[in-house]
């Protein structure tokens, strides 16, 4: 079973995302900020990361840049999921190595479509 790390400081969003992703066959781990997410990745690299941008301690873009420098950190498909919906943010995410980008608010269909786009389904 493929694994997905859901990184978001909102417990509600994590819960919604977990339900959608479990329905399409992922095993889920959760992290509330980038630092916690890095710890997860160093312990067990997931197949996918669903990543919020604005979080305390370490934000999503800093996490992504760090992840891509870690051993094995090039492998996970990273899908941003954020209220930051401007072209500048999107370009920065792509440059940092994001595979896809979801603009909140999202629904289950969008997550599924974007995961398919990232080659995860």
């Amino acid at each position, binding site marked *: 079973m493929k694994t997905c790390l859901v990184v978001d400081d909102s417990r509600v969003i994590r819960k919604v995302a977990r339900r959608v992703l479990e329905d399409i066959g992922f095993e889920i781990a959760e992290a509330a900020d980038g630092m916690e997410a890095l710890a997860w990745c160093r312990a067990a690299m997931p197949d996918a990361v669903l990543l919020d941008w604005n979080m305390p301690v370490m934000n999503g873009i800093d996490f992504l840049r760090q992840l891509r420098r870690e051993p094995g950190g090039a492998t996970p498909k990273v899908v941003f999921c954020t209220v930051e919906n401007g072209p500048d943010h999107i370009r920065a995410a792509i440059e940092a190595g994001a595979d896809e980008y979801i603009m909140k608010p999202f629904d289950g269909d969008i997550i599924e479509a*974007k995961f398919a*786009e990232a080659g995860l389904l």
Partner: protein
Amino acid sequence: MTPEDMDLLAALGRARAGVRVETEKPYLVESRLSPLARREGYDSIDALIAALRAKREDRLIWAVVEALCRSDTAFFRGREAFAQLRDEVLPALSHRRSEAPIRLWSAACATGQEVYSLAIAANEATTLATGTRFEFFGSDLSERSLEKAQAGIYTQFEVQRGLPIRMLIKYFENQDDTWAISPRIRQMVRWKRINLLSDLSVMGRFDVILLRGVLRNMDASLRAKVVQALVALLPADGVLALDPEDDVSEFDDVLTAAPGGAGIYLRDPSVRVAAAA
């Protein structure tokens, strides 16, 4: 809605557009008609249908038929077909055409996502002959859909259905909460309201025709007529793109499926879809 109302709607859909109204799904019919009823100033769908019977007004009849025919659409719907067009069909065509432009038609383009996907796919094709020109053409039964298509402005939800994020950034401009297709792409497309039951022989030649989301809801007796009319517009090396799940057994004398199962059909099976390596 009474069974008689449903019969009336079914008869209108069949007669005017050849469309099979899904009378077994009243909720679907209601969801399509209720925005129209509101827009036209009726309190309910029943009031709208009563007016339809009383007035027999052509404009209102068409508004109802258009609402009933509205189809679900998304960018790059049926992704495999667009990949095959980009990587095989368009390069092959471009090397066979020297001067003439390659003409592409989305024959039920709804709110435009399909034509713009075609234009993006053509723009992303990397192995075209130098100097290849494209002409894109979008048509639909619904004037309202065409207006939106022509504007090329989509909500955040719409651009997240089927459009890869890199394509969004490359081909769209962000305006507040909406995304507008870049003028360069928009200006490549021409639009027209076309009923596929009308005489299509006046349309001229097309190299690629997309007819998707149509046949499955089309009255069985009309499917072959429409497909044959479209095939007649294709040159020998032209292709018709249908939905992969469309039943084509009625047309296998005029069409041959291209390899890949993406719903792409060849007029002449002896013409190879891919460019010679």
